[in-house]
């Protein structure tokens, strides 16, 4: 009896096929969805291993962290500017008039278990999100990965950067505290300054003259929680989809051509590394959220339009605009019954508009200037494109200088210099530093192009003198450390012999696999 049961068990196992339960699931799914072919291609996908290709993953995973922490916060936050008297855990606010939005944020920070941690993770995550987008974008720019056929991905990415900056600004304005409220007032005034449409735009958005009916916070809430995240999710999907379809770029090297991709396979290697990286990005956000305080709104108090604090800078990704506003001379045009505030328009509307337009159009601009219409799957080394690299360096120098210009008071305080002198320094620096940076970078690239073996280990050379007085040099043999193991890149094998003992352990690739069954359906 037991023999029969055992036989049935074994034959049942045999009937399942050589790949067991998983094979059966694959069969069932494939019958319905036809996924086996595409799935296999997907699992075989090759990812080049260069470290700079992982920068986009920082953005992607910090976005995931933002979504998760954001969902938590949205379950507690009250998007309302209704004024109430605060009675709660934080005593120094007791009895004061605060908005519901502010009160709920203080409550998240002090009364909700884990609330302060999640709130800080969300804010740190946002800073890291925008920071990593910029770093990733820089890598794409300096290696020329935006060239054909990837211009669309560049445009999508730049759009996501704009949305990320906007999302961050809206997000930290939601708690309606003194500092972010001041930022909103400034935003209102900037929008108001736009000729013809400005005053309409602001009374429409805010529901009247500042601060309006108070509808701005609920509107910002739904934009921040629903509208922009949906758009971002859609754009990220297209961004990654294009990456999958067009495949990743790679640096030139041995075995790497315009027509292949060399690296590690999606499953299991890349999945392991990238999942591990997801955990590490989350962990980094959690550690920052645990140990470094950010945006302690309880210290600022609820927004009151007649109150102000000194040393109010916006979050770092808006700092370049704040710096531009500070150093701009007061050129306002007033005449013929109208006013056009150029001192606001130029630094806060025209300038960022110009920067982002140039960014969006860069692939087209470069195509036009270089006349290069070819498909590129191999990346440039930045030094091989000195003009592009210099332009990018100048742009970064400009943004960095503007960021410094937004901290004029902090710098004046730290270096014990007059505030007025610091401001004049930045007015001049914002023109000089980008030009110098561009020129220096250009020169550096040219020089690095001309020198071979930069960054490689130098090997000592033995100088010998012959009897006649001739000098000859004899290179020392390379150390074992310097030798490369060379392996030919191979396609990902279809099958792996995981039980070599059954083959007698030859270690040679077999041409006939084990466990083959003939089955007809």
């Amino acid at each position, binding site marked *: 009896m037991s023999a029969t049961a055992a036989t049935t068990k074994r034959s049942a196992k045999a009937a399942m096929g050589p790949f067991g339960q998983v094979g059966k699931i694959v069969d069932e799914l494939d019958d319905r969805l036809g996924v086996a072919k595409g799935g296999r291609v997907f699992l075989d996908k090759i990812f080049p291993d260069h470290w700079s290709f992982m920068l986009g993953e920082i953005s992607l995973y910090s976005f995931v962290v933002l979504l998760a922490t954001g969902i938590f916060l949205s379950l507690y936050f009250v998007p309302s500017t209704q004024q109430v008297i605060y009675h709660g855990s934080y005593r120094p606010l007791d009895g004061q008039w605060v908005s519901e939005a502010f009160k709920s944020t203080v409550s998240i920070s002090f009364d909700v278990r884990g609330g302060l941690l999640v709130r800080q993770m969300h804010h740190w995550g946002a800073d890291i999100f925008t920071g990593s987008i910029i770093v990733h974008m820089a890598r794409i720019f300096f290696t020329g990965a935006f060239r054909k056929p990837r211009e669309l991905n560049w445009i999508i990415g730049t759009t996501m950067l704009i949305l990320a900056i906007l999302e961050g600004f809206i997000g930290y304005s939601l708690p309606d505290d003194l500092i972010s409220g001041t930022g909103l007032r400034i935003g209102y005034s900037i929008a108001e300054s736009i000729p013809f449409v400005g005053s309409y735009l602001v009374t429409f958005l805010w529901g009247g003259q500042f601060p309006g009916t108070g509808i701005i916070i609920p509107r910002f809430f739904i934009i921040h929680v629903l509208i922009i995240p949906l758009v971002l999710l859609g754009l990220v999907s297209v961004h990654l989809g294009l990456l999958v379809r067009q495949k990743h770029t790679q640096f030139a090297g041995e075995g790497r051509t315009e027509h292949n991709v060399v690296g590690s396979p999606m499953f299991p290697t890349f999945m392991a590394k990238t999942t591990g990286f997801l955990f590490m990005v989350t962990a980094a956000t959690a550690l920052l959220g645990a140990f470094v305080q950010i945006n302690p709104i309880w210290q600022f108090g609820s927004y*009151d339009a007649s109150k102000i604090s000194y040393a109010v800078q916006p979050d770092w990704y808006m700092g370049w605009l704040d710096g531009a506003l500070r150093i701009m001379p007061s050129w306002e045009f007033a005449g013929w019954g109208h006013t056009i505030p150029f001192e606001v328009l130029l630094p806060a509307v025209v300038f960022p508009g110009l920067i982002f337009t140039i960014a969006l159009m860069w692939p087209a601009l470069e195509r036009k200037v270089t006349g290069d219409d070819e498909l590129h799957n191999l990346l440039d080394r930045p030094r091989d494109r000195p003009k592009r690299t210099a332009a990018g360096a100048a742009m970064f120098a400009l943004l960095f200088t503007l960021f410094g210009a937004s901290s004029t008071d902090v710098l004046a305080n730290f270096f014990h210099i007059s505030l007025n002198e610091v401001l004049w320094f930045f007015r001049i620096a914002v023109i000089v530093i980008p030009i110098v940076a561009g020129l220096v970078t250009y020169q550096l690239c040219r020089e690095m192009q001309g020198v071979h073996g930069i960054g490689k280990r130098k090997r000592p050379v033995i100088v010998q003198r012959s009897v006649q007085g001739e000098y000859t040099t004899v290179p020392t043999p390379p150390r074992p450390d310097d030798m490369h193991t060379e392996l030919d890149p*191979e396609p990902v094998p279809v099958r792996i012999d995981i039980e070599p003992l059954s083959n007698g352990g030859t270690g040679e690739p077999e041409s006939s696999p084990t466990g083959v069954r003939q089955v007809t359906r």
Partner: protein
Amino acid sequence: MSDEERQPSRTRVPMPVAALSDPHMGDAAKHPARVEKIIAVIFLLAIVFLALFGAAYWQNWRAWELGGTIGVGLFLLGFGLTAWGKYLMPQGPFVEERHTLASTSEERDSMAAALVERSAVVVKRRKMLGGLFALGAGIFGIVAVFPLLRSLGPLPGDSLDVTDWRKGTVLVDSSGRPVRKDTLVVGGIMTVYPQGTVNPQTGFITDRGQAVDQTVLIRVSDQPLVPPTMPGREDWTPDGYVAYSKLCTHLGCPVGLYEQELELLVCPCHQSMFNVRNGAVPQFGPAPRPLPQMHLGYNEQGYLIAMAPYDQAVGPGFYERTT
């Protein structure tokens, strides 16, 4: 084609097999056994910290303890997994061929032809219909925008130009107390609002009081200012009191920073500087226009009052603003 012929073949065909000892499949680490042990320890530590997070949450520990435990635990978990992937999983290098993205020129031509020629058929035969439809769709596109934009809020009208200050409005502080002749000493500054915008019992200040009417009152001397802040303003500064709109003419921040010895109002946002003796004309920084000055006076009770509304729109510039 019969049904059987249409079905994909289900015969299992022999497939090439790679050996496990193939260096492409092998460990990248020089000492894989040691690396495995290290990763195992890392995973164990991760488990400890993550469990500690659970305990920390249950015991309602503080934010840094919650974050520290889950941060370290998650980091170790991720680090271990990544190390496993980097050192112990097949590294390759493997290669994948790129398929040409572009279709054949035949396929491209047929697509273009489908678009161009089929549209031509429609347009050739039904030009009028096409035109009418396009007009309808265009009009829809335009009018659909109306509710999206216009319903959001009111027209600005003249709301951006006027404040609540009128002739006779009493100046009150943030507690609702009126200002008298000796409230401030020379060198003193306070923020004032129109009486009626501050509730003395509850301390509540209306939005307009805070945002639009906010005024900064400074005692610069104990005599009316000579020379006046601007020509024609000889009686605007009784007993040395000067009042300006607190809204910066740059971007609307409250100009609350006063330097007594320099007699300078500085806007904290972008460091525009206004001299209070000469009509708050900007001396430095991006602000384009002086702060509007209030004509001050006294009423019968000895309280400081506004003698007239501001003579211009307060705050930042906008297109419809006239000086």
